[in-house]
């Protein structure tokens, strides 16, 4: 019995990114236009070639309401004068990657041939000088609904609190340490120093890391990503257009979207793992490749602990094995066995919220990583997005299989 892996009909033909910064003063639409126009041009296409559009998290979450999401699909279609046969935007699904998965499905069904996919954040402008807010802190005047009602009344306001649960459990049971987490923060910072667009590029020592203020024990400030303004866009195209591609096609080899355990921040049954375990398993079920084939990894680092959980879930080390995998940091360096978050990730390059990691994976597979290019012509990249109640991952290859 064979299952057709429909996402392999899709490849990433173009990428684009806006200015990235803190309090850029640019509107969410301006940032979005920068990224989507760059992506269309990068694909060698014209706006009139775009016949589909997909975004995360959809409209209604722009700067005025916290900057978590940019303009919605209708606004972008209208602003760019697009004519599309299909479009989609939404928050639910396989984390930010769901926007890419939806594009693949539109291509596999024949609804679209060139899908514009984008993600915009203006969290830096939105927070102004007021500091970072927790997820549960706004818009709940009539009381907190849904699963957050069991978290935020206890001051568990932010994902950092929920990830601290996992960190504490790993510290206690598996010998993970602050030094282990610090390897991710320091490695990302080393990579950011080679990325001109990264927001934090000064070297970080272990003493710097250990001296940072606590946010939610054992996670400190440098375990948390950096809110920013920016927009990232892709063009996802049907493989039957690849002969016209402007760049080497980056094929979507497999996606992981499954939910098999409880899709929750605090009801997941197995505290040694996290809900990313399911899409990770799903990914490998759909792939012709194994973890050993991966040349470069872009694993979500909204908090460093999430990266630990993805490393284990995807099988780069066993559950509980991240402490030894990360020891000394050499395995995750640019010349290590698994170069990790090569742009500096969200911890140092800025919280582009999943899409920065996709963008970087494509750059690396094209060989366009500049000073931070991984050697040896990487052929396979894995991207993971999200944690808790929203998780997804995908495997990308250079060229079409």
């Amino acid at each position, binding site marked *: 019995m064979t299952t057709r892996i429909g996402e392999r009909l899709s490849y990433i033909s173009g990428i684009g990114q806006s200015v990235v910064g803190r309090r850029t003063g640019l509107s969410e639409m301006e940032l979005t236009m920068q990224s989507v126009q760059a992506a269309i041009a990068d694909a060698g296409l014209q706006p009139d070639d775009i016949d589909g559009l997909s975004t995360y998290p959809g409209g209604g979450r722009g700067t005025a309401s916290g900057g978590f999401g940019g303009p919605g699909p209708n606004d972008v279609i209208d602003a760019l004068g697009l004519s599309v046969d299909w479009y989609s935007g939404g928050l639910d699904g396989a984390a930010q990657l769901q926007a890419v998965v939806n594009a693949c499905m539109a291509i596999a069904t024949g609804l679209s041939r060139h899908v514009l996919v984008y993600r915009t954040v203006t969290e830096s402008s939105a927070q102004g000088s007021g500091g970072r807010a927790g997820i549960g802190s706004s818009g709940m005047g009539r009381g907190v*609904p849904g*699963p957050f009602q069991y978290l935020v*009344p206890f*001051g568990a306001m932010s994902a950092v609190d929920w990830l601290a649960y*996992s960190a*504490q459990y790993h510290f206690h049971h598996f010998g993970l340490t602050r030094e282990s987490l610090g390897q991710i923060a320091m490695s990302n910072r080393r990579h950011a120093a080679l990325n001109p667009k990264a927001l934090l590029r000064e070297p970080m020592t272990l003493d710097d890391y250990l001296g940072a203020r606590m946010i939610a024990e054992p996670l400190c400030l440098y375990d948390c990503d950096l809110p920013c303004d920016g927009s990232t866009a892709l063009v996802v195209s049907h493989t039957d257009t690849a002969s016209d591609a402007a760049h080497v096609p980056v094929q979507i080899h497999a996606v992981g979207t499954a939910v098999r355990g409880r899709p929750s921040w*605090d009801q997941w049954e197995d505290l040694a793992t996290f809900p990313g375990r399911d899409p990770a398993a799903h990914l490998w079920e759909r792939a012709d490749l194994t973890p050993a084939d991966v040349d470069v990894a872009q694993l979500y680092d909204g908090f460093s602990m999430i990266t630990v959980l993805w490393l284990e879930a995807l099988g780069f080390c066993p559950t509980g094995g991240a402490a030894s995998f990360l020891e000394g940091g050499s395995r995750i360096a640019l010349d290590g066995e698994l170069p990790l978050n090569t742009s500096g990730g969200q911890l140092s390059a800025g919280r582009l919220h999943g899409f920065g990691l996709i963008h970087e994976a494509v750059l690396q597979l094209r060989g366009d990583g500049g000073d931070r290019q991984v050697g040896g012509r990487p052929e396979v990249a894995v991207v993971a997005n999200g944690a808790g109640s929203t998780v997804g991952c995908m495997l990308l290859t250079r060229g079409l299989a």
Partner: protein
Amino acid sequence: MLPLRLRPFLDPDNQEYWTGGGDGRLHMHHCGDCGWWVHPAAPRCRRCRGANVSPEAVSGRGRVATFTVNHKAWIPGSEPYIIALVELNEQAGLFLTTNLVGIDGDDVILGMEVELVFEIVDGIYYPLFRPRQESP
């Protein structure tokens, strides 16, 4: 302990959980057919899918599965406080996020026994936990 307790949005499913503590006990949805405890409160049993679920009192005893000491003042004016995931004795994986009271963050250890103590604000019975006292 926290300068502000955000309120849950009450509906027919969660009403008893949040407001039913007048007898000193926490009431959670329980399946009358297969015996499963259902949390968060929902009108179907997630094990047998039956509709015969209704609130019943739990013992209020459990263990600390994991925890954090939160330092960031998400709520203006808050001092560092302990957020814990407590696994109730009734069922493996029956987790509640809560605050630990009556103990310093440095003294919390995973697996320690805890028991329920309510903090009541405007009719909402917030289930908090403290180290288990010796029973008489």
